[in-house]
Structure formats: structure tokens, C-alpha cells
């Protein structure tokens, strides 16, 4: 069942006319073992240490982190990208998202580095990554 072409997927995250922005994805684990205890990358999944420039859509929804008295302000960053741009992605891989500006050059969001903490493939061409801002 062919629904979309590779060009269709690219257009969804297009940074020249659409909602996409640009970034660099890093396969940061150069060893067989994941940093998570007891987990191992599969044969096809061994991180290469390579990096790739990609386009993605960033969402950072506000949410309140409830405390004992008052809620703290929090954001949950999520990136949507083409699955073909990150075929061997795993937890703790790194995503550098370039600064986002308006047409006048004012910065809406400065350049930010994130760690991948959750990978949600839709298995039909796109990936959603739950991210954590790197310290």
C-alpha cells in the first residue's frame, strides 16, 4: 500500500517553505552497549558515531510540573522527523537543533542540544522523538 513518496516525507519537514527547521543528528554511542543497564543495540542498530544534517518539526508544549505547593513551569520537547534520516536511532543519541528566528532575524529559540529519551516510530515513515534538553 503505497501512500507517500520519499519526497512527500521530505515536504512535511521542509525548512524552506514549511514548518520544518534544521538540525544535526548525532549517533553518539560508538560502542555496542547502550548506556542503559541490560540493554544492547541489535546487529543492525550499532551506533556509528556518525552525524547527519536533517530537517525536523519541533514542538515544545508547556506543562505544569505539580509540586507540593505551586507548579513549576516545564516544557516537553518533541521532534518529528523522517524515519529514513535516523535509521539506527537509540536512547541518548544527540540532536542539535539550530536557532529559530523570525523573518526579521529575532531569535525565537536559541540553538539547543537535546538527548533522545524516547523513540516513537509510526512505522509508516515518520519518527517522533521525546527529548531532554542537554545540560
Amino acid at each position, binding site marked *: 500500500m503505497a501512500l507517500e513518496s520519499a519526497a512527500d516525507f521530505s515536504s512535511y519537514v521542509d525548512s524552506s*517553505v514549511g514548518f520544518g527547521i534544521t538540525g544535526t543528528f548525532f549517533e553518539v554511542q560508538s560502542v555496542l552497549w547502550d548506556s542503559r543497564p541490560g540493554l544492547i543495540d541489535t546487529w543492525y542498530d550499532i551506533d556509528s558515531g556518525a552525524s547527519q544534517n536533517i530537517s525536523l518539526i519541533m514542538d515544545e508544549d508547556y506543562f505544569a510540573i505539580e509540586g507540593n505547593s505551586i507548579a513549576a513551569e516545564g516544557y516537553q520537547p518533541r521532534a518529528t522527523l523522517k524515519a529514513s534520516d535516523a535509521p539506527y536511532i537509540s536512547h541518548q543519541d544527540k540532536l542539535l537543533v539550530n536557532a529559530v528566528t523570525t*523573518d526579521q532575524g529575532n531569535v525565537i529559540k536559541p540553538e539547543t542540544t537535546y538527548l533522545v529519551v524516547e523513540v516513537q516510530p509510526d512505522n509508516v515513515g515518520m519518527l517522533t522523538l521525546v527529548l531532554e534538553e542537554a545540560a
Partner: protein
Amino acid sequence: MSQIKYETESDMAAFLDPTYGHGLAATYTRNGVNTSLNLILNEEYVELDEGSGVEAVQPIAYCRSVDIPSVKHNDTLAVSAYKDVNGNILKAATNYKIVNVQKDFKGFTALVLEEQ
């Protein structure tokens, strides 16, 4: 660096236009420095202390992020009176304190306000 293509700063300004749109003129104050800007003010009804039904409203202002790049809690907003097309005042000019900042990182920021 990525430049957003779906809206320009002028587009964002148009959303908040007080002359033809839903916007209101306001003065934002941070560290004693005043800045004029436009915003949309929503004041939804909320029920405080659910059950006993204390009536309240929760004012939230929507602004362009470029107008308030360093916004913090306790900065203030003086919002002009809200009038109908005949000039009748529907809501008097009001001063607010900012108690919560919610950026969307796409150009707009929602400010949760507390009436002073």
C-alpha cells in the same frame, strides 16, 4: 539557523492588531523599563475551590515573543480599556502582574496574569 517561513513578524503583529482585530494596546514593564505592545487578553471563567463554587476569572495575555524576549514572573502589564466600536467601555484599563510564562517557541507567549 532556521528562519520560520509560515509567519512573518508582520503576520504576528496583525493577529494582535487593536485597530481592526482582537488586540488591545498595553504597556509591559520590566525592571522599570516600559515597552508598548499589543496583545490579546482572554479572561475565562474558572471555579475556584471546586464544589463550593467561588467565581473567578483567569486572565491570560497572548503576546509576540519578540516583544517580550526576557519576560519573567512579576513583570507587569498595564492593559488599556476594552471598548466596543462605539467607544463604550466593556472592561476598564487594568494592571496585571505576570505569574506564569508559557512560550510556544513558534512566535507567541501566553502570560498568566494576576490582577493588581
